[in-house]
Structures are given as structure tokens and as C-alpha cells.
């Protein structure tokens, strides 16, 4: 690959930033931990994953899959509104925008103001300086309408966010908006081998279960009652290395009391609740457990399609449930750089919608 290629230059920039001796990154991580925003082990996990996934070959593969035309959106400006419930959310958007040649304008999350900012600072001190601007305060962003807006929000908030951006002249009525609204994932397992259980635990409990790729419902061939003790042992093992950073509020205890009252099978882990239920996942710190096989899994995927981000299995890899491809359970928290949040490839979307 030519050293002039954008992919080469971006992957070099990312890898350089991720070097262990990068002092400013180290400080950004320390500050994030000190401010209590994220746990250090979760940040390290994410950084390690980026190191492995944002490589030249992977970016090339993403470019191929998305039909990237490098610099085709030169002169266009994309506004990204990041929600920061896990560290470095939005990293993929930044890369996608830069690869298309557009300018990235980012409203960083107040929950993740240091690490992503450090990377963007790095970019600002490089050949990309003219193509990057960011702030945690929307009022500090350039007061000119963007050519596209990316954001994550609830169905209820889409219209309100759009209206506010238009009012503050950050977007226009016709500006293409990419709203991501999926908020949970479902997994299927067909055994309780140690590897499967560890993958499942990682998929459920990493980041306190708060990512949209986190598993909020599992379909397993055994009941929660029969698996409770073993499963809890694996959770303890995970928490020993990765203590849960965010704690649930007391309403979770009320839910536990309610389940107990109505006789619903459950496992109370103090900071997390597992309950036997096929209801649509909604609340944080709750894993829904459903006894069943492949057909039950597919039926629940269809039933809860609205709001569903990804589906995983330890065995049915690459099969489909309607429009969704089943991903390996082990990749739930380690998606490839070309993964499509809410089913949309950011590069392809930008190239199709922004001209």
C-alpha cells in the first residue's frame, strides 16, 4: 500500500497514538479514571481492541466492503454527536469521516471528554488539522450547518435533537441525519463449556453491560435455575479482574423484590440482576435469561427486532435471522472496524447521502 494512501496515513496515525509510550494518552486515561468516568480496565480493554482492529489490512477491508472512494467528500463537514457510555465511543465515526475526506466536527460526550479528545488533538497537530474540530459544548462548534449529522438517541429524542440543531444553526432542515437507536443485543448459546461461559460473561458484563453491543438477553438450552451457581462463579471470576465501575440505583433491588414476589426465577448479584424472562430488554444491569433452542432464539430476535443492535452465538456463526447476521459471541465487545451500528455502514451512508 502506498504511503500516500489515506488508509495508510490514518492507520499509522492511530497506531502511533496507541503506542504505550504516548504520554498524553496516558494522562488522558489517568484523568478519566481519576474523574471516575470509566474504569481503567475497561479503557485498557478498548485501547487493546483498537490496537488490534484499526490496522491497515482491516481498514482496507472496510474500504472494500463499504465501497470507499477516498476523499470523495472533500470539503463536506460531518457533525457527530457522541454519547459516551463506553470509552472511545465514536472512534469508528471519526475514522469513517476522515476516510471519505470530509471534515469531522465532533460534539464529545461529557462522560468521555479526555481520551477521544486526546486522539483528536493528535489529529489537529497533523496533516488532518484542517479537517478536525471538536468540543464538549455544542455552542463552541462552528456555527455553520453541517452536511450530515450522526448521532445516537432514543426514538423520542430524534425530532427534538434535530430541531435543536437546526435552531442553533448546526444543521439545516434537509441535512441528512443518521440516528442510531439500537440499545441491546441477544445471544444464543448451546453449551456451558468454560469458553462459551467466559465469552458470554464478557459479552454481558463488560462496561457494566451498558453498551448497545452488550448482551441483554441470552437464549440457552438450560434454565437459569439449573445454571445459576455455575454462571455466578464465572461472573465472580470476571469481576475479580474487572470490578463493575457503574453501580445500579436502588430501583434494581425493587425489581429483585418484585421478581421474588411474583415467583420469577432470578439471580441477584447485588450490582446486577439475572432474571428468567423473554420480555424486551430495557433496563441497565439486567440480563434476561430464556431457556430455549435455536427456534426460540430466532423467534425472540424477530419479536424484539426494534432496538436490537446485534445477535451472537457460540455455534451458529454467519447464519442469518432475516436481515441480521449472527456474529461470534466472542466478538461482542470486540467488533471489527467495519461493523455496522444499527445496520448502517458509516462510510457507505456518508457517500450515498452527502454529495
Amino acid at each position, binding site marked *: 500500500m502506498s504511503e500516500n494512501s489515506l488508509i495508510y496515513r490514518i492507520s499509522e496515525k492511530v497506531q502511533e497514538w496507541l503506542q504505550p509510550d504516548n504520554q498524553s494518552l496516558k494522562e488522558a486515561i489517568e484523568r478519566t479514571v481519576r474523574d471516575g468516568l470509566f474504569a481503567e480496565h475497561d479503557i485498557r480493554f478498548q485501547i487493546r481492541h483498537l490496537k488490534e482492529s484499526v490496522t491497515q489490512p482491516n481498514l482496507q477491508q472496510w474500504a472494500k466492503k463499504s465501497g470507499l472512494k477516498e476523499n470523495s467528500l472533500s470539503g463536506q463537514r460531518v457533525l457527530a*454527536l*457522541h*454519547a*459516551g*457510555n*463506553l470509552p472511545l*465511543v465514536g472512534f469508528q465515526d471519526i475514522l469513517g469521516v476522515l476516510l471519505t475526506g470530509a471534515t469531522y466536527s465532533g*460534539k464529545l*460526550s*461529557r*462522560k468521555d471528554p479526555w481520551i477521544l479528545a486526546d486522539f483528536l488533538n493528535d489529529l489537529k497537530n497533523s496533516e488532518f488539522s484542517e479537517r478536525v474540530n471538536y468540543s464538549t459544548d*455544542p455552542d463552541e462548534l462552528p456555527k455553520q450547518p453541517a452536511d450530515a449529522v450522526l*448521532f*445516537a*438517541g*432514543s426514538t*423520542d*429524542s430524534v425530532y*427534538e*435533537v434535530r430541531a*435543536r440543531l437546526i435552531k442553533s444553526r448546526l444543521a439545516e432542515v434537509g441535512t441528512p441525519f443518521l440516528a*442510531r*437507536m*439500537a*440499545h*441491546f443485543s441477544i445471544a444464543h448459546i448451546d453449551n456451558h463449556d468454560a469458553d462459551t461461559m467466559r465469552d458470554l460473561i464478557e459479552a454481558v458484563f463488560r462496561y457494566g*453491560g*451498558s*453498551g*448497545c453491543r*452488550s448482551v*441483554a438477553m441470552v437464549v440457552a438450552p438450560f434454565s437459569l435455575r439449573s445454571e445459576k451457581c455455575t454462571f455466578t462463579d464465572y461472573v465472580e471470576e470476571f469481576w475479580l479482574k474487572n470490578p463493575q465501575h457503574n453501580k445500579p*440505583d*436502588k*430501583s434494581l433491588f*425493587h425489581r*429483585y*423484590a*418484585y421478581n*421474588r*414476589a*411474583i*415467583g*420469577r426465577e432470578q439471580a441477584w448479584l447485588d450490582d446486577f440482576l439475572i432474571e428468567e424472562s423473554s420480555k424486551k*430488554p*430495557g*433496563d*441497565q444491569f439486567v440480563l434476561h435469561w430464556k431457556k430455549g433452542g435455536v427456534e426460540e432464539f430466532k423467534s425472540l430476535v424477530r419479536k424484539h427486532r426494534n432496538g436490537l*443492535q446485534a445477535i451472537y452465538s457460540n455455534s451458529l456463526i454467519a447464519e442469518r435471522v432475516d436481515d441480521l447476521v449472527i456474529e461470534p459471541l466472542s466478538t461482542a465487545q470486540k467488533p471489527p472496524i467495519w461493523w455496522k*451500528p444499527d445496520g448502517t455502514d458509516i462510510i457507505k451512508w456518508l457517500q450515498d447521502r452527502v454529495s
Partner: protein
Amino acid sequence: MKAEQLFDSTVPFEERLNRVLQFQMDRNPVYRRFAETFGISPGRNYKPKEIPLLPIQAFKEASLIAEGAEARLQFRSSGTGSMDRSTHHVADAEIYHRSIRDEFFRHFSFKTHTLFCYTPGYAENKGSSLIYMLKELTEADPSGLSRFLPLGKPLTQESLKEPGKPILLFGAAFGLLDLIDFDSAPLPEGSEIVETGGMKTHRRSMSKNELRIKLSEGFETPIFNIHSEYGMCELLSQCYAIGGEWFSTPDWVDVSIRRADNPSELCMPGEEGKIGIIDLANVWSCPFLLTGDRGVMNERGEFRVLGRWNRSDLRGCNFLIDSEL
């Protein structure tokens, strides 16, 4: 437990409450398990705010009736699938009748008004508690002129003049708007309106204030004569907001606003939370309930219903942006 033990206002509320709590702990295994998780133990006296409130969806997911009791009546909430509907087994119909009448007649009278009921949407639900309640009330009118209005037809001058006194028009909020759309005649002078289920709609959502203005204009009735009723299939008691949006409670009901992140704690006046209800008339099912409604209380202990509680702490990469902008 008999009606008089619940409704006797000469006995302090807390005393009646603790008797009902004891009864629940003895006879309702669902509530007992719930309360025990919070350390509630028999024999102690509790204040209303100390009593754990069972989430109201228990009426969908469990059978809430005291051990040894039989359901004389059964009410079902509206909804599509059977799993989405609450079932309220009523063991003592007299308690329900008394609760309906006592609170209604605290605010209204058949001496001065004739009750006209308009309830589209509820009419198809065979187990509707609203329809039952309104039947109970229309039958209580000694003149025999109170009645249900035919659905899909406007109110005419003739029908409104027939009783010879002002009308108390009681109906599902959006059904009343339909009546306006059908070009109904204005209500006679002195008439009043009670709307209910304001948030349940097959039409666009509307604030309570907008609704009240529309009803006032559409029926040519002063806005201070527009009232609201707050009731549901899961509760045997009703609350009324007279001439405004603030509801008062019957003597046997305690309403509190609970923190959504910890329903054991009360919100301060003016602070929004989930509406918690202690309805002693529910003694045979479950009187200690946390609703899914959003509400706020004022300094006088009255409450306002602001709609459904929206879960704002949903998981995922999203839902946070709302608080970021």
C-alpha cells in the same frame, strides 16, 4: 375485612392502613414476599411512606387476591394481547361500590346534575372498570335520567334539554373531543365535564391544559367546570381534580410521588417521580402500588399526572445524547 373498617374516617388513616397491611401480610403471599424483602414484619406500625409499593404490573403477572377469597367481579385493563392486560379480581363488590359512590358524591350531586357518559374505546372492553363504575353511578341517579350516550353521534339540543337540569358529561378524554368534532351542541349553563384517561389516545398526544381548553371551547363550558378523574382497573378508588389539574384523594387513599431510581424514597413537592398509591379499597387484592405514571405533588398534598414514566436509563450507546445537548 369489611367496608366500614376501611371507610370510617373517624379512625385515623394510619390505624386503618396498618390493619390493612397486617391483613395483606397474612393473606396475600405475593405482597408478603415483596414486603418481607424490605424487612417489613408483622406487628409493627408503619407510616405510609415506609410501606413498600408493589409495581402495578403485578396485576399482569400474578394473581392478586387474598388467600381464601373468591373473585366476585373481574376487571381487565385495555390492551392487545392477554399478556399486556391487567386483571383485577374483586372479592368484595360492596367495597368497590362504596368507594365509587363516596368519592363521586363528595364532588357531584344528582340533585343538580344529570350524568351523561361517553366512553368509546372502553365500550369494547367487556371487563372495563370504567364502564362498571359509570353504570354504578348512572343507576344511582334516582331520576333515572342519567345514562350512557350512543357512540359516534353528536349531542343534540333536545337530548341535552331533556333532563331539565345541567349535565355532568363524564367521558374518555379523546371521546369527548370526538363529540366536539361531531358538532355536538353546547352544554346547558351550569354543566360540568369530567374527563378521564387523558393520556390514552388513538389521536395525537395533547397536554392536559390543551385538552381542557379544547373541551371548554368545544362545549362552551367554563374551564373551571372541566374536571378530571384518575382511575384505573388496578384501583378500586378514584381521584378527582376539580376545575384544574391537581387531584385530591379520598380519605382512604394516600398518594405519594416516589423516586424512580429508588421508589422507597419520596420526592419533594415539585419534583417529578412515579405515582405511588395506597388504596385501602384494594384490601382484597393489593392496596400498596407503584404505578407507571409520572406525577408531581404540590405543597398542599395534591398531585398532577404528567403522563407515563419514560425509562431514561435505558442501556446502550444512545439515550445519553438527550442529556448532552
